[in-house]
């Protein structure tokens, strides 16, 4: 028995001694993969969050359903109550209910009216719509007023502090018949009570200015919210419909990118393959060496040296703001020609001789015999060109100026840099990034084999 235990222990020790590196390597590899995939996971999760949720710290690591507020207001007996009144009062209440201080945690507030003497205002306005100034001027001020009223009604000490601060600043605060706190309006600058509220909640950030006054006429009967999971796709819908007022969808930009990529693929496959074929089969060996040396002399010249004159040339040719300008900047690549040549060298040259004996012309030989044989190489180079063009930014940024023909990379860059400070709209750019991943994932999924070849060739290219 003892001997059996001994051998088992020895076996275990032997196993560990020899396999520890493998096990350690596995652990570290899995860790590295997790780190590598985190941004992708984060892209998917964050692009579904609404803007306020995206600005929360610490962030929620899983999908967060959007909250839709349902507010029940009793408007019996109130005269002249229009649907607009309704809209803001429901918004006010929705905001008040979330009650997160200055974090406008709206999470989807909008209004639908149900006639029943009891009116139900259902929250359905997304924060993005709010941001687009649909109800901005009215809402902001009213909401904060409602907040203050809430403080007053609940006897919150913040109310007293607010009043004392404002009175010390020289504002006349008083109560009118509807028991609403009113302030004097000195000029037409519409701002919110935010700054005063900040005085009370975060004194160092406060910045005094003037205010608008509001009322809530309806009587609150009840408030609930429900978590809506299907609203997760709202961001993607907004990104899809993003068109900067031009009336087309984001798909247009993806089509632009595809069109650019197809142009590049066509140009590369045409010019590089015939150069490779010519170097392998048609020209003499000494000529080929001289050609190769000549073309490889461009390698030490960094790309920037030719960029500016190329840009000036494109401008003078009148190709600015067209796809031809972009294609002109990168229509041929000598390295691809070398790759084609390498592939052609693996094909037999005797086919040519046999075809010539049969009386075939050169062009026919190439088109009918060698091009079909080199199909994997064509596929791989097409793949590589597509990938390179899909992510390329520099030349398109320089040459294309009008929004309709921009590829999606430029649009995402403009969305990223357009928001500044508090309005930085991450969810829009994330949703666009997510939409943009789909075509490449599609291609990677369906064209795995030629992609592997492409990567192999690309890795040889170095």
């Amino acid at each position, binding site marked *: 028995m003892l001997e059996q235990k001994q051998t088992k222990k020895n076996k275990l020790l032997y196993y560990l001694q020899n396999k520890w*590196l493998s096990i350690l*390597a*596995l652990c*570290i*590899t899995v860790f*590295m*993969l997790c780190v*590598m995939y985190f*941004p992708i996971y*984060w*892209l998917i999760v964050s692009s579904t969050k609404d803007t306020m949720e*995206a*600005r*929360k710290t*610490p*962030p929620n690591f899983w999908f967060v359903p959007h909250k839709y507020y349902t507010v029940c207001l009793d408007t019996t007996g109130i005269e002249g109550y229009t649907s607009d009144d309704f809209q803001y009062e429901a918004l006010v209440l929705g905001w008040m209910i979330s009650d997160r201080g200055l974090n406008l945690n709206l999470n989807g507030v909008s209004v639908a009216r149900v006639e029943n003497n009891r009116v139900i205002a259902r929250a359905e306005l997304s924060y993005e719509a709010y941001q687009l100034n649909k109800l901005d001027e009215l809402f902001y001020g009213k909401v904060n007023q409602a907040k203050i009223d809430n403080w007053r009604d609940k006897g919150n000490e913040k109310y007293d502090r607010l009043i004392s601060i404002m009175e010390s600043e020289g504002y006349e605060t008083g109560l009118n018949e509807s028991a609403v706190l009113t302030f004097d309006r000195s000029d037409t600058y519409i701002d919110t009570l935010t700054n005063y509220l900040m005085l009370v909640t975060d004194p160092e950030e406060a910045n005094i200015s003037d205010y608008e006054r509001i009322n809530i006429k309806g009587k609150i009967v009840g408030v609930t919210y429900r978590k809506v999971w299907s609203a997760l796709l709202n961001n993607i819908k907004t990104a899809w419909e993003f068109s900067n007022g031009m009336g087309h969808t984001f798909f247009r930009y993806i089509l632009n990118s595809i069109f650019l990529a197809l142009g590049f693929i066509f140009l590369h496959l045409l*010019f590089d393959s*015939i*150069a490779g074929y*010519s170097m392998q*089969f*048609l*020209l003499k060996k000494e000529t080929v060496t001289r050609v190769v040396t*000549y*073309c490889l*002399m461009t390698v*030490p*010249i*960094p790309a*920037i*040296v*030719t*960029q*500016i*004159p190329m840009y*000036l040339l494109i401008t003078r040719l009148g190709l600015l703001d067209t796809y031809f300008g972009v294609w002109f900047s990168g229509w*041929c690549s*000598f390295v691809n020609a070398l790759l084609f040549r390498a592939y052609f060298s693996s094909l037999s040259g005797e086919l040519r001789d046999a075809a*010539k004996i049969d009386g075939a012309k*050169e062009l026919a030989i190439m088109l009918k015999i060698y091009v079909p044989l080199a199909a994997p190489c064509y596929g791989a180079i097409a793949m590589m060109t597509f*990938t390179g063009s*899909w992510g390329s*930014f520099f030349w398109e940024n320089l040459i294309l100026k009008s929004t309709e023909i921009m590829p999606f*990379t430029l649009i*995402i*860059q403009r969305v*990223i*840099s357009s928001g500044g400070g508090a309005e930085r709209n*991450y969810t829009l*750019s*994330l949703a*666009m*990034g*997510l939409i*943009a*991943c789909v075509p490449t*994932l599609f*291609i990677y999924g369906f064209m795995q084999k030629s992609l592997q070849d492409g*990567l192999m060739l690309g890795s040889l290219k*170095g």
Partner: protein
Amino acid sequence: MAKISIKKKKSPIAREQLILGWIFIAPILFGTTLHFCLAGSSLYNSFFEYDYANPPGKWVGFRNYIDTLTSPLLWTQIKNTLIMYGWTLLLNFPVPIIQAILLNEIAGKKRNVLRYLYILPCAIPAMSGMAVWRYIFDPDSGVLNSLIGFFGIPPQTWLYDEKLIHFTLAIPGMMGGGMGFLMYLIVIEGVPKEMYEAAEVDGATRWQQLIKMTLPNIAYMVKLQLLLNVMSCLMSFDSQYIYTDGSGGPNKAAETVVFGIYNKAYDLLQYDKAMATSIILMGFMLILLLLRNIATKYWLKEE
């Protein structure tokens, strides 16, 4: 014995082949010649004060070069470039190597699955990646600040902090994977298995095999990649532009030389100075290449 030259009479078939050969190679030759002409034009125009409407403008000799070399902005940019390259070298360069070496140690079906998982993130376009990283780096709501807050480090302003921005720009590259990783994996797998078997017979453990056999065999690839890395990093532009919204970062801390050239040429429309700077950069790179050639010859001589 005297050489008798025999003139071969070109048959129509051979002539047709040659003509077609030249036609086929003409586009590439045209492209290369255009490339040289543009580079030459850059050199030529840098000696003038570039007048857009009436090129090339007034001759000013070396004034553009002197102006550029004496401007403190260029030296700030050079400093920025070097710091940024240092961080890239430290953080981004070793990662694919380590990943490939570690993957090589794992055997069996797991290996193929893991290899596929390493390559798959190539499918994400670079722009989406930059959008996510912008979000991660956000000072108010980014994950990175939450993460380091977990360890007790106060939140940083990452992309808006002039001391941190070089380090920050190197972080997205730390993920590794993709084509660079594949290259190293191919080289590592190309090491002949018989060597390993012989070493195992001699009693070397896996760790010793790794250190003494795998690493020296990939050394040539590492050197090659290092050179390519230097050249491509000195010319990188996209990430600096997009992460800093086209400005140069806080207090111009993220501006590299290439960024400076871009800025001068397209924002300030000072084409002449931009071309001069690009020629200076090219000179710098040629010096680097020359140094590398000398160093390689020296090492080879030693062996």
